[in-house]
């Protein structure tokens, strides 16, 4: 492919992507996030069909009292006093839970034949990484992030 050709997502996507299963536990999600320094991880079912994503932000919510992390919850928290023990207690109470309830399923995906510019606009406006899925069967094929893009652009021709 010449560098001047119109490019599709398949040309630069990285694969296979690191992922979790919907029945993985919160503990497994934490381990993966910590190990790979990732801030969001794609989630698939046991047939490798893309389901959604679990984000570090969502896991962060589990460390907070629910009245703070919920929609329309408390914004101003300076009156509170929290200890590390309080935070650990909340984390311990959910560690063995499956991640399914915390998976965001309204994630925009791209297909291998989507124009790359579509993925770039999504990265610019909304996401850190865009999942690339099979147009026909919904299987997770790869991902595109700023890093993937920079590698492709900087790569020698």
């Amino acid at each position: 492919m010449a560098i001047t050709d119109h490019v599709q997502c398949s040309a630069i996507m990285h694969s296979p992507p690191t992922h979790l299963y919907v029945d993985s536990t919160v503990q497994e999600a934490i381990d993966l996030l910590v190990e790979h320094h990732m801030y969001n991880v794609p989630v698939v079912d046991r047939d490798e069909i893309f389901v959604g994503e679990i984000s570090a932000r969502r896991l962060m919510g589990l460390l907070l009292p629910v009245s703070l992390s919920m929609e329309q919850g408390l914004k101003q928290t300076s009156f509170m006093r929290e200890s590390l023990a309080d935070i650990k207690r909340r984390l311990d109470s959910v560690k063995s839970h499956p991640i399914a309830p915390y998976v965001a399923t309204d994630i925009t995906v791209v297909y291998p034949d989507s124009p790359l510019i579509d993925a770039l606009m999504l990265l610019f406006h909304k996401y850190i990484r865009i999942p690339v899925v099979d147009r026909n069967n919904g299987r997770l094929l790869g991902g595109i992030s700023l890093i993937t893009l920079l590698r492709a652009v900087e790569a020698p021709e």
Partner: protein
Amino acid sequence: MDSSAPAILLGLDPLWLSTAIFVATYALLISERVHRTVAAMLGAGLMILSGIITQDDAFDGVDFNTISLLTGMMILVGITQRTGIFQFVAVWVVKKAKADPRGILVTLATVTAVFSAFFDNVTTVLLIVPVTLLVVDKLEVSPYPFLYAEIFASNIGGTATLIGDPPNIMIGSAVGLSFTDFISELGPVVVCIHFAVLLVIYLLWTRQLTSSPEARARVMAFDARGSITDTVLLRQSLAVMATVITGFIVGEHFGLQSGSVALGGAALLMLLFTLGRTGKEQSARVQEVLAELEWGTILFFMCLFMMVHGLKASGVLTLLGQQMVGLTGGDLQVTAFATLWLAATASAVIDNVPFVATMIPVLQSTTAHLGGTEQMAPVWWALSLGACLGGNGTLVGATANIIVAGFAERAGQPISFGRFLLLGLPVLLLSTIIASGYLYLRHFA
């Protein structure tokens, strides 16, 4: 009917046509298939398009004093709530109650009632319920008694003042009842009902309302002052609110209507909120405040007034009034109690705003039969008590109920329609009985 009105569509009888439009709009409102603002816009539009009223008539039908009061209070509460005062008071009373669940139940519900009396119920529960959920989480007690108490308190507290609940704003504006009239007439009975309902909740959950010393210590570690985000704005907001309430009380002696007082206060607080900032910052702050206004609600009220005006112009409401006089035999006491119970029942099932907007002209048309404006007073109080307290009957009886149920759901402790009904219905019954007794003792004994 106005002689300048255009010809009625297809020469239909305006009486039947306006009734059909009204019933269809009500059906849309009850079905909740169409947003209430859209339903009211359709109803008002059809009244004009079908020629029952002209556009000028429709505008004349809008009670702009109600609209101004509603808008002014929305601006005032929108700015005041930014200061963190609601959370401050909530945390402060929790600590005053020594983080004892029983004390907290009473103090938080009472704070909810008082805030609901002066600000709108939805804003009050939006700000108090998250603090409540945090506190009960720390205390490791069930949130249910607290959430129920706050729902009931917001509807009961809102009944106490002219500005507490939209039905009161509409009644006060249409009939010329003042802020002082409302608080002196309804204040005492609202206090009785509030504590009677709290007692019921207390007795139902008394055994679960305990917490360990460690859990209480976690809550006692809170520092209420941390809730205040802007002390300058807080002082300004409280000063303007005090001025507005004084304006409500003394304004009537100077021919100043409550709508002007509220909008005047809103203008003053917006001035203080933006003063000394650059043009760009001022513009951003004004936009922020105006974006938070519930324009949908304001439009809903305006269109509702127009639609009801169409019904009034075609003579339907006078006819209903005559029917009512026929049924009650023109007896004031019977009319008052019938109004109270009808309003309580209707408001438990449907939005109390369209109900009260319709009832006001119906009752006004019966004034002559019931002995004049002054004699009618108990009927207006009955309408206010029934319409406001009725909201406690079912989960969909008031917007605040639905907001609290939403919070409960997100906190993993859902409140279902049926479960709410089990408590809401007895509470509605109890409060309407107390209200009946009060009206009787005060006006008919």
